[in-house]
């Protein structure tokens, strides 16, 4: 979908996974500092970004999310030594799989945010919402497709 009047007013639903020690604290800081940012992200707190099972992301998309944000401590800052690197490797592979499934890479974002980076967190969410908006709703519903006749019944040119 391109930038049409419909997509300009479209409010994407974004599921955001944050870690307990850095990125969730960043969101907390943005809140206590009363920074305003787009209300489109529903945050889910995990103990660590390394806890992010790719199943969560697939379930979010299958359940109607338009985009997914994955957020964790900066590389080297992980509370559990190196689990955010594990997430990083998974994220790169997941992005490739999602692309093959027809989910645009712009619908998934990785964001490193420390507990002190409330402003950066808020700003990045605003940017992400604007990145997803022109794509329109994802509206994943592969099971509901009615029987199609069109491609099979196509009139054959004489």
């Amino acid at each position: 979908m391109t930038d049409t009047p419909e997509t300009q007013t479209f409010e994407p639903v974004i599921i955001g996974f944050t870690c307990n020690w850095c990125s969730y604290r960043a969101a907390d800081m943005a809140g206590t500092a009363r920074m305003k940012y787009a209300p489109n992200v529903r945050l889910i707190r995990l103990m660590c970004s390394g806890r992010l099972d790719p199943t969560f992301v697939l379930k979010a998309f299958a359940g109607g999310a338009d985009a997914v944000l994955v957020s964790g401590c900066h590389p080297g800052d992980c509370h559990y030594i190196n689990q955010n690197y594990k997430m990083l490797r998974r994220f790169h592979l997941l992005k490739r799989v999602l692309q093959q499934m027809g989910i645009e890479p712009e619908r998934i974002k990785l964001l490193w945010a420390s507990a002190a980076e409330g402003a950066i967190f808020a700003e990045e969410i605003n940017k992400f919402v604007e990145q997803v908006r022109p794509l329109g709703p994802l509206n994943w519903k592969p099971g509901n497709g009615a029987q199609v006749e069109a491609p099979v019944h196509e009139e054959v040119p004489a």
Partner: protein
Amino acid sequence: MSKPKFAMYWAASCGGCEIAVLNIHEKILDVDANFEVVFWPVAMDAKYKDVEAMEDGSILLTLWNGGIRNDENEHLAKLLRRKSQILVAFGSCACEGCIPGLANFSPLKEIVDTAFSTLSTDNPDNVRPQPHYEMPEGAIHIPTLLPVLKTLDQVVDVDYYMPGCPPESHQIAAVIDLVIQVVQGKAQLPPKGAVIGAGNSTVCDECPRKRNVKTIKEFGRIQLMQADPELCLLEQGIPCNGPATRSGCNARCPSAGAQCIGCYGPAEGVVDYGARLLSAFASVIDSNDPAEIDRILDGLVDPAGQFYRFNLAGSLLRAAKPAWKSGD
């Protein structure tokens, strides 16, 4: 006393499951001794109207193999569900879509074009099958394709799942033995929804290869390299689906020197097969640098095909967007 009734049906499948049933050798005589086979298109002549005429619930056991690809499959699934007391999703196609389910990567038009208009197809008038056609003798019909392939339990209620492509013959024999014992009142059926004829662990647990938690700098293809015969294949960079796949086959492929391709479907407790495998593959990559991670991942030529080879229709996403969009 009349014998309990048995049926077996194939939908979108290759016929391998039927062969696997015959591969139980003389055990097939036990099936005949204990059951009356009322409907089994590959083995005997029977008409759909014969099934329709049966009383609801009159068939004790129906083994269903194949995915739901067209409206005929869907009709038969609903019909046999009504007529059967126990409906088993038999084999990978019925459980999770299997190879026919890979069509869920492509829109319907592309599938039909591939079948009828490739270079090797002799079809100069570009003819397409017409589901409804008026002939001078009357109207004729063939089944209409659904936009995406569905698994059996996406269409009807399923009592048991028997995975495998095809299920191993010794597992089929064990299940048939169990059902006969149940009929004779000597055993109890497992709880509804159970996976039967398979293990509860992963292929890795049955695999004789050695693991030493090694990580890799490169993925390779087994046909292009000299694989160590004793070391874990994944640790050699060979994409092996063992970590996410249900046990039950005695790790046949890795024992024989080939990678597991995942035909026994998701292991116990795995919600999305591909997601579990994705995590396993990502965990052997030896790098913290995004650019290097990407370079290593380039060695996996078709990750979605690798992760969902047998499980696309049964996965959380079920089909790629262009495929299900073709049904809108």
